[in-house]
């Protein structure tokens, strides 16, 4: 503190640093609640694998079931696809909702927001770091679930060549690569949802309220997606294209089903990040 004087050197900002982002990830992954959430996400594929194993020792018995579930008995890797597909309407959006809702509203609720901003952290930078952490969390959540599915599936059903929906056969290695591509595609979709979450998070000081609002939004979107009379609306729903990840399990991969999903996600991300910025950049912080 002896440096305190009228002529102390003016501190200069260092170059690009990942310090705040790493601190942010430490907060997210160090928090008990989130660790518990990740355990739940890993439990889903394990439950599916065990359930299928118990219910159908004979592969022919489930031949009429849903695509992924039916394929599990033939190759354990499909546990991962089945788990991701089953979690899209609820568990994965819930996880992303909880994290993104917490991003600004959580700091505002604790009062730590005012101290971050006076450090100072520019508001645009804070939003960027918070959103980057949400995207990273989304990817980790999806791949974590896929990994648990692959391990549980291979342990209970074995691996071997993967039979695609188009009937072609690819090696297990390529199957895993395609699973990674699925994870990336779903991350893009969930990141769009995370952008909505970031925006909602700038509206309130109650992270729980924001989480509930986001879950209702996601579930509502899934419900509307199942009503045929509203089919004109379906392409505009942010959840509509998530299940299209099955396109990555055909040979050749047709981008026809994927491009609209990526475009929709990009549009949602852009709109809601802009809205979050417009809302947050000027807001009076009275928490």
């Amino acid at each position, binding site marked *: 503190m002896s440096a*305190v004087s009228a002529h102390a050197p003016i501190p200069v900002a260092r170059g690009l640093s990942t310090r705040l982002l790493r601190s942010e990830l430490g907060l997210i992954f160090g928090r008990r609640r989130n660790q518990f959430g990740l355990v739940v996400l890993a439990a889903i594929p394990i439950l599916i694998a065990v359930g299928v194993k118990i219910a159908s020792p004979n592969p022919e018995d489930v031949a009429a079931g849903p695509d992924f579930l039916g394929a599990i008995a033939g190759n354990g890797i499909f546990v991962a696809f089945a788990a991701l597909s089953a979690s899209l309407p609820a568990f994965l959006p819930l996880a992303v909702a909880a994290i993104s809702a917490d991003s600004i509203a959580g700091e505002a609720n604790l009062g730590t927001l005012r101290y971050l901003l006076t450090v100072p952290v520019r508001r645009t930078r804070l939003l960027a770091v918070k959103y980057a952490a949400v995207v990273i969390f989304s990817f980790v959540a999806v791949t974590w679930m896929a990994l648990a599915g692959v391990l549980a599936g291979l342990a209970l059903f074995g691996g071997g060549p993967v039979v695609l929906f188009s009937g072609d056969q690819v090696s297990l290695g390529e199957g895993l690569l395609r699973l990674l591509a699925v994870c990336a595609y779903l991350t893009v979709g969930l990141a769009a949802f995370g952008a909505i979450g970031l925006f909602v998070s700038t509206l309130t000081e109650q992270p729980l309220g924001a989480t509930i609002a986001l879950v209702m939004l996601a579930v509502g979107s899934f419900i509307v997606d199942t009503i045929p009379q509203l089919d004109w609306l379906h392409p505009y729903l942010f959840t509509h294209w998530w299940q299209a990840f099955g396109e990555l399990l055909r040979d050749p991969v047709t981008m026809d089903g994927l491009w609209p999903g990526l475009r929709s996600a990009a549009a949602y991300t852009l709109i809601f990040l802009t809205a979050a910025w417009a809302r947050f950049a000027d807001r009076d912080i009275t928490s």
Partner: protein
Amino acid sequence: MTEQRRESHRATILDPGGAAFAVESAGLTKRFGRQLAVDGVDLAVPRGSVYGFLGPNGSGKTTTIRMLLGLVRPTAGRHALLGGSLPRDADRVLPRIGALVEGPAFHPYLSGAANLHRLDAADRTADPATAAARVATALDRVGLAVAAGKRYRAYSLGMRQRLALAATLISPRELLILDEPTNGLDPQGTREVRALISAVAAEGATVLLSSHLLSEVAQICTHVGVMHRGRLVAQAPLEDLRAGTMPRARVETDRPEDAAAVLRELGLTDVISGPGIATGELGGTAPEKVVAALVHEGVPVRGFAVAVADLEELFVSLTGAGFDVSG
């Protein structure tokens, strides 16, 4: 500060490191809906001063501080910190300012040290290589070294307040803005915080210290500003205010009217008489002369005292209502 520098400062409000005032505002105003929370505040906190920012709860101190730090956007007016005008120079001046705004706020499930590391990680000007040492030093200064690894949620109110103070000391600061830093502390804790502030000020930092209790800050302040209902009703060096409170002679007698007449005759001003009492501002008159004159005139003196008006009374008179009443 030489006169020349002062002049050049006036000419250009931006004079990095050399501005005469650590905090300067002109017409700072904030309106929340129909309520005028802060009304045309012109702050001038000289460099190196310990500035007591006083006023009852709800008088606009915290909103003013939030505006100074860029948390709340002023409805009107402008201000500069350390010679840099806000919000334009926020990135340049805020790293040199430690702030405690409206009580401590930290992540409950992180330890005290981890909370400070998080704030340091957010500071783009902070050197990560020295973070551990700086955090340890800051915790040590506020007496939290032993509790550094404890979760924040297990901290007592006093420990939380200390941690907030430690956060203002992680990096070298030229200005500390402390909003009610002794809130929730016991008398011992209050004394320690006062000593800490004095120590930081002795190293050359300017301190802006808000409080609703004059007695909390009168001992360490060099300057005071008094807020009342959103307005800055007084601002002066403490010396000047003290000088403004003239000693008064106070006579206890059963003939107050006669006593008052004697006091007037002697040249005392602002003479007031009441039942069994007469008082007047002494000015240059020696107290012993007053007593002699009273006795000479045959006024029975039952008691005599010279009282310097309490600063607290002065502030009560400035803010109209009592000091603890919201304005």
